[in-house]
Structures are given as C-alpha cells and as structure tokens.
C-alpha cells in the first residue's frame, strides 16, 4: 500500500515538475521583456526623457525691466511706474466649470464683459502653468475681498507689478502719448526676446518714439517647480536691465499754463527755445487721460473718444494742418526783399481790394475801407492783405514755394516724435500732378496771405518763427535732451541779408503795439515780435461780408498767432492756434511769455 502510494506520489511530483519548469521559463521570458523595455527607455530614449523631465522641472520666468521714467526740464516726473495689483487665473487649478467659476468670482468682485473677453482672447498664448491676467488695477477693497476668499479658489492669484502712470493725466497726453498692451500687429514686429515677459509697448507720442530707450532688457529667473507650479528653489537669476530715463526740454509750468489757456477750446500751442531747439510746450486741446490706455481702455470710453466731434485723440500740434494765413506775411516780405522786388520804402495805396490786371474779381483786404498808403512796415504791422496780394503776384508761385519751403513749410520737421504731418505748400507741378489742372494766377494772389491750398502745422509755424527770431539760423527741434544726435552746433544760416531780417522783425515788434494787430500784447516788460493771423475756412462770396451769426461755428475763422521774445537775443518762440476763435490766440501767447519770464526770474 505504502509502496503504491509512494509510486503515485512520484508520478504526481513528476507532473508538477514539468509545470514548474514551464513556470520558470515563463518567468524568464517575462523578465527579458521587462528588462528589454526598461533598457529601451533608459538607454535609447534617455535623451528624450531627460529633456521631458527637465521640461517638467524647470520653469524659466522672465523678469520684466521697469520702464524708464520721463522728466521735464526741471526734473519733475511726468511719467513713472507705480505698483499695481493684478488678478490672474491659473486655469489648471479651476475645479469647477469655467462658467460656474466666473459666476462664483463675480460674487466677490465685479468683472466686466470686456475683461472676460480679453481674457478669453489671450489665454491661448499662455502656458499650462502660467497665470493669465484677468483684472488689472485692483483697489484695496478688491484685494481684501479676494484675499479672504482665496482659500476657496486655488486658481486665483494676485500679483503685483509695475504699471505706467502719468501723474499729470491730461497735461502731457499728446506729447508723451501712452503705453498699452501689445497687440497682434505689434507682436509680429517686435523682437520676442526683448519683450519676454513684457506686455506693454509705447503706442503713441514719445512713449512710442523712445520705446527702445525706455524699454530696457528683461532678465530671467530659472526655477525648479513642483507639479502644481510652485517654485521650490531658484536655480539662477539674471537681473533685468531697466529702461533708461528720458529728460525732456518740456517745461511742466509752461505746458500747464498753455494747456489751461486752451481749456474748453480747440487748438494747439507749440513753444520752443530758440537757442537749443528744445520744445518747451506742446499742447493740443481737447485732450484725454492717457492712464485709461495703460491697462486696456474700456471699449465704451474708447468709442466715445473716437467719435467725439472735437477729436480729443488727435494731436493738433503736430498733425493738425491749418492755413498759415497772415502769419506767413513776414516770410513773404523777406522773400520779396531777398529777391529785390521791393524796397522797404516802396509804397502802395490800398483801396481795400486788389484786382488782377484784366480780371473783375476783387481780392479784399480784411479792412474793407482800405488802409491808405502802406509800405512794408505798416503792411506787416497792420497786416495789410492788399499789399501782400501785390507782393505775391510780384514773387510768383515758384518763389513763394521756394521761400516757404526754406522756412520748413511743406516738409516734415526733424523732431523726435512719431506722428508729424508734412503740411502742403502748393506749386505748379504739385497742382498738375494732384489736381490735373494748371496753376491759376488768382491762386498766387491768395497764397500771398497764406490762404488757398497752403496747409501748415502749429509745429512748423513755431519752427518758422524760431527761424525768424534767430535771423535765419536753422535749429533742429528736440523734445528729449539726452540724445546724442542733436546737431544744433552746426550753423546753417539762410542766405538772406541781415538788414532784411531787421526790417521785418522791427515790423513784427511794432505789430504787437497799437495800432498793430497784436495790440493786446502791448506794454509787456519783455520785448516781443509777433504776427497775428486769421485763417478763413470758407470763402466769402464776392460782395458779401464775413458774418459770424450767419455761418455755423465750425466754419468760423481760426485765430493764429506767432511770436518770439526777447526781440534781441531771442529765447522763446511760439505758435498758437485757436480753432474757430478770433481773438484769444494773442492773449494765450501773452500768458506763455509771462510764465516763461517768471520762471526765469524764479530760477535766478
């Protein structure tokens, strides 16, 4: 029995032995498969996975530089950076659906549709672990509310960063311009490396022109992060190069007086230092608050600004073109003297109008009765139109074109500013090209008093005035001081005889005292030479009179005034334009001269 059992047992053992060997072979094969797979991952795919592991681990964060500050000539800050708090969202940390999340979030702080739309537009551009900004400029209450509720929303992140601020809000808006979020078009142009981590760019004005100067260069920080994007340790840190500051010739005091003087009017003022070419004031009214643009202007306000009939976004000082009107007369006089067409004593009886030989049409003087016998001096002083109709005919359009161009009209001034208009000085060839018409003699007549096709900007007028003040010495206008490119040292002088300058400037000086047209400026402690102007917007029919009450206000004449002071050794030249207002330009100029000389006294 026992023997039988043992035999049976041995059979069983043999049977299971087979199985065990089978198992052993299976395990061997399985081990080979696993080891092969692991060796494949660790040897052949090693570099791939090493890169992936580092991608996981290392976050390279750009550190944006702080934008350069902008100072006026006294060292007053007119554009700086202030700390601002931004609410950002880490989309990966949102536990509920996006719409539920927004509903919950709206219970804590107000979020406008504009902000949501912008968020949805930009969120594709961010990486998985990056926080996407949703709401800028949080106030203290909002920060407090968010901080209290943050435990409920791990996706919320409040970050502090520097944003641009213009402390004088409206005062410098046209000259400084503003910064804003980089848009799609700008994104395609800019160098991605220099703008790493920077979300704003200079959009207009000096902020645009000196973008690279103010920008700086971003630094970066490379940090090891965990799976939730939290920084575990900083690996290395390259500090950013901050933007350089910009010192301007602009004088905040003058700018403020100029701006206030134009308040509730439409117009522009450009004042510059005749010695350096430095722009002292550059005002265009009405204006806007550039701070609204820094973190993205809301579309309603932007629409308002854009559709406003007074065009507050339009920089009249450099882009607005106006007929120079009578302010052109000193240049016409210089041209005629230089061409030896007249002598200063040449006299002419003004009947109140001028007629071209063989034409019926009467070109009227502004004083319909006429001003009797006028010579060059009285013609400038009293702004006699009839006299200059004559001069224009004597000069011919080609000479008018030549001399106005010499004074910078019709050409882009070389100013460190992005948006500058060229204006227009007509000529025979211009008319042929653009109007497909020959030049008519009548057009020459009105060109003599700066009307007709002629279009100039307040900036050009101020520069031409400075040129007269400097007796023909050409200066390069500048807004910013610290630019090496200034070439005012090289003395380019217009080839016009000294005595001619003297005659014209003397007449301009007398023009600001009675009975001159600029009599409102008389009795100032400083000597001034100036010339008024009245730009007609509509032509008055023959035999009719200009009557304010019968035409709409937007067609009323523009008041112009150019002046410089002191007459000998001039320092400041300016051009003032007040749209649709006749008389205020001279008074505004007075205020500017006053503040300029008061400043000078205070400085002493």
């Amino acid at each position, binding site marked *: 029995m026992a023997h039988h059992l043992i035999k049976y047992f041995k059979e069983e053992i043999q049977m*299971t032995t087979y199985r065990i060997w089978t198992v052993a072979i299976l395990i061997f094969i399985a081990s080979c498969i*696993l080891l092969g797979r692991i060796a494949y991952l660790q040897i052949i*795919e090693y570099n791939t996975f090493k890169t992936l592991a580092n991608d996981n*681990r290392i976050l390279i964060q750009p550190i944006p530089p702080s934008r350069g500050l902008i100072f006026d000539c006294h060292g007053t800050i007119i554009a700086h950076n202030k700390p601002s708090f931004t609410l950002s969202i880490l989309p990966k940390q949102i536990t509920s659906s996006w719409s539920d999340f927004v509903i919950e979030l709206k219970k804590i702080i107000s979020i406008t549709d504009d902000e949501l739309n912008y968020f949805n537009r930009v969120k594709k551009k961010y990486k998985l672990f990056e926080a996407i900004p949703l709401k800028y400029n949080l106030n203290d209450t909002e920060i407090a509310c968010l901080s209290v509720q943050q435990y409920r929303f791990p996706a919320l992140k409040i970050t502090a960063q520097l944003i641009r601020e213009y402390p004088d809000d409206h005062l410098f808006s046209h000259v400084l311009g503003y910064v804003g979020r980089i848009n799609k078009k700008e994104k395609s142009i800019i160098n991605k490396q220099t703008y790493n981590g920077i979300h704003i760019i200079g959009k207009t004005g000096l902020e645009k022109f000196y973008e690279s100067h103010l920008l700086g260069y971003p630094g970066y920080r490379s940090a090891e992060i965990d799976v939730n994007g939290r920084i575990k340790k900083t690996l290395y840190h390259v500090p950013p190069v901050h933007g350089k500051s910009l010192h301007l010739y602009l004088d905040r005091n003058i700018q403020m007086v100029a701006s206030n003087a134009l308040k509730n009017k439409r117009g522009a003022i450009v004042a510059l230092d005749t010695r350096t070419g430095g722009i002292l004031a550059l005002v265009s009214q009405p204006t806007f608050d550039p701070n609204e643009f820094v973190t993205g202007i809301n579309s309603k306000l932007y629409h308002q600004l854009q559709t406003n009939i007074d065009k507050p976004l339009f920089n009249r000082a450099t882009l607005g073109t106006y007929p120079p009107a009578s302010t052109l007369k000193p240049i016409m006089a210089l041209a005629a003297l230089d061409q030896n067409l007249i002598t200063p004593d040449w006299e002419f009886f003004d009947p109140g109008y001028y007629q071209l030989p063989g034409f019926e049409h009467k070109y009227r003087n502004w004083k319909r009765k006429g001003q009797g016998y006028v010579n060059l001096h009285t013609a400038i002083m009293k702004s006699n139109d009839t006299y200059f109709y004559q001069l224009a005919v004597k000069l011919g359009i080609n000479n008018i074109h030549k001399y106005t161009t010499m004074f910078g009209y019709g050409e882009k001034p070389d100013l460190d500013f992005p948006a500058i208009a060229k204006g227009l000085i007509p000529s025979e060839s211009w008319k042929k090209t653009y109007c497909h018409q020959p030049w008519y003699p009548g057009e020459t007549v009105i060109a003599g008093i700066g009307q007709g096709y002629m279009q100039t900007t307040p900036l050009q007028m101020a520069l031409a005035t400075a040129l007269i003040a400097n007796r023909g010495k050409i200066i390069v206008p500048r807004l910013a001081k610290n630019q090496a490119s200034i070439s005012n040292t090289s003395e380019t002088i217009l080839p016009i005889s000294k005595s001619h300058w003297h005659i014209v400037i003397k007449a301009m000086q007398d023009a600001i005292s009675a009975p001159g047209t600029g009599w409102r400026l008389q009795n100032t402690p400083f000597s001034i030479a100036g010339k008024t102007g009245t730009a007609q917007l509509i032509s008055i029919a023959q035999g009719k009179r200009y009557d304010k009450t019968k035409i709409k206000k937007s067609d009323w004449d523009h008041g112009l005034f150019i002046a410089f002071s002191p007459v000998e050794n001039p320092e400041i030249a300016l051009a003032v334009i007040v749209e649709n207002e006749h008389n205020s330009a001279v008074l505004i100029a007075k205020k500017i001269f006053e503040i300029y000389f008061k400043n000078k006294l205070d400085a002493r």
Partner: protein
Amino acid sequence: MATDFIHQLNKDTELSNQSNRLKRLNLDPVAFFLIVLLCILSLFILYSSSHCNTHLIVRQAIHMGIGFFMILILAHISPKKIQHMIFFYYLLGVALLIFVLISGSGAKGAMRWLNCFGFRFQPSEFMKFIMPITIAAYITRYPLPCNYKQIFVALILMAIPVLLIAKQPDLGTAILVFLSGLIVIFLSGLKISYIVLVASLAAPGFWIVWHFFLHTYQKNRVLTFLNPDRDPLGAGWHIIQSKIAIGSGGILGKGYLNGSQSYLNFLPEGQTDFIFSVLAEEFGLLGVFILFIIYIALIIRCLYIALHASSSFENLVASSIALLFSMYAFINIGMVVGLLPVVGVPLPLVSRGGTALISTLAGFGLIMSIQAHKRLLQ
C-alpha cells in the same frame, strides 16, 4: 532519489554557523537573506519617494516586523497542519469579507478596510494568500490531476470570496484572488493540451477585442472597473510621468534622493504602485538590474524548494506562491513601464502597504515551513 537531493542540500546549507542558527529557526537561509535584502531596499526607496518621511519608514518597518514574525510562526507549523487548518482560515477569511461589506470603510466608495484594534487591514489581501493554499489543500485530497467534479468544487471555493470582493467593489483584487486559485489548478496538472488550447484562444481573442471592438470610453470603463481608484483622466498622465521618470534615470540614475520626478511630485503614487519608477529614476538601469536579480533569485529559490517538497500539497503551495509573487511583480513593472494598463497592483515586498506586505511574507513563511519539514516524510 529524493533522499540524495536532501543530503546534498543539507551539506550545502550547513556551510556556516549563521545558516545553522537560521535553520534551527526553520528558516531557509537563502530565501531569508533575499527577503531581508528586498525589505531593506524597499525602506530605502520609500524614504526617498516619501520625501524623507521617517514616520512612514518606521510604520513600514513595523509592518515588516509583523511580517517576519508571521514567517517565524508559519515556519514552525508543519505543512500538514496547515493543510488541515487552512479551511478554518478560509472560512474566517470569508466571514471577514462579509463583515467588511457590512461595516468596512474605504476611499471612493469601495469598502475594503477593516478597523481592528486600531489597525486597518484589508481582508481581501489576506484572501490572496489563503486562496491558493485552500485550493491546494482541497485538490490534493484526491489523486492528481483533478477530475471535473473536483475542479467544479474548487471553482465554487474560489467563487465565494471572489464574488464578495467584487461586491466591495474591487474587481481588480477579485480577479487576482481568482487567478491565485486558478494557478494552483494549473500547477496541479491540467492536461497541457487543454491549457494551451484555452490560452491560445483566449489571449489573441482578448487582444483583438480590446484593440478593435472596444471604444476608448469602454476600455476606460473596464480599466476603472478593474481598479476603482484609477482616475480615468489621470491614467495617461501617470504613465507618461512614470516613463519620464524611468527614462530620465538613464543607466546610472540621478542618484539617491535626487529624482526630480518623484521629489517634485510629478510622479504620482510614488510610494505605492509607482515605486519602481522611483527606483529606476534614482538608480537607473543598474538599480533595476539589481532588483531583478534579487527577485529572480528569490523566485528560483522558491521553485527549487517546490521542486524538492515532500508532498504534492507542499509542491503546489510553494510553486503557486512563487508564481503569484512573480506575476505581481510582472504586472506592476509592466504597468509602470507602459506595457500593461494601469491596474492597482503593488510591487511585492517593495511598495508601501501593510496587509499586502504581511500576507506576502506569510506566503514565504509557508515556503520556509515546507523547506524545514521536508525530511519528516522519510
């Protein structure tokens, strides 16, 4: 013939005093040494993957202590006694499983844990250990190979705990318990042609169905069914991060405590299911090789003991424990290297976890007992 073998083995193992001392404790020195080595390795890797959490290491060491105590006890109980007692434990296990369903606790709706004197344990894990022994004890009452009646009864014995575990619901463990029983029947000597036929039909059939007839969401549902803890959206992430951890380890690894994937929490479940990835990341292919060598040596030793066991019950128990052990290791590693779907199987003796560790060590206790008591037959 068997006697010659035993004599030879005695001569081999009497080489040192150390092994004599272990033998007096009925411990097989080779297996014991390899198990201790694995446990030490486990503590080292756990220390790293838990970010130097000593509390956790102490806990795991205590679990290991309990496990070694189980080895000592089981090594002293003769396999014959175990064969008689196992049905009682089987019934106890089933009772515990029922109890779990009534008053268990667990995460994500699955009731698996039982709180007992401040300890939490998983009766289903113990069932993995009891199941093969029970089946072995049952079928070796009759001459082998089993007939259909015996197979049917064995299947019933398996079905009761399997259904109870599936009800928790924990289909993954249920399937593993079922497999642990099935393996015994396979090892007891089903006709090989029958096994090959079933396997050759089932394996490609399953593969074809999986790849061509199931939609992604259906596969996900099946996988989630197998392992309820599995996050259907996160599974891909787990595997990607695990492969990155392993691959970036290279040949020599990133160095101990220097694995960026595990240290920065990119690697999920680094202490449990994905502990192998931590090892591969920090010690590279070299570390993987060492682990494989220890595993294979331990399995070979167990198979050797099975081969020289003195009864078919002992033979079956030892070989099924060895096969299950290697199967768990294969499934776990296959999963973390991205060859197999993510099912919640820990790396035996290395992953964190109390019950699984203790029941695995208990299994080795049985093998020790088999090795120690084999002379008694003569």
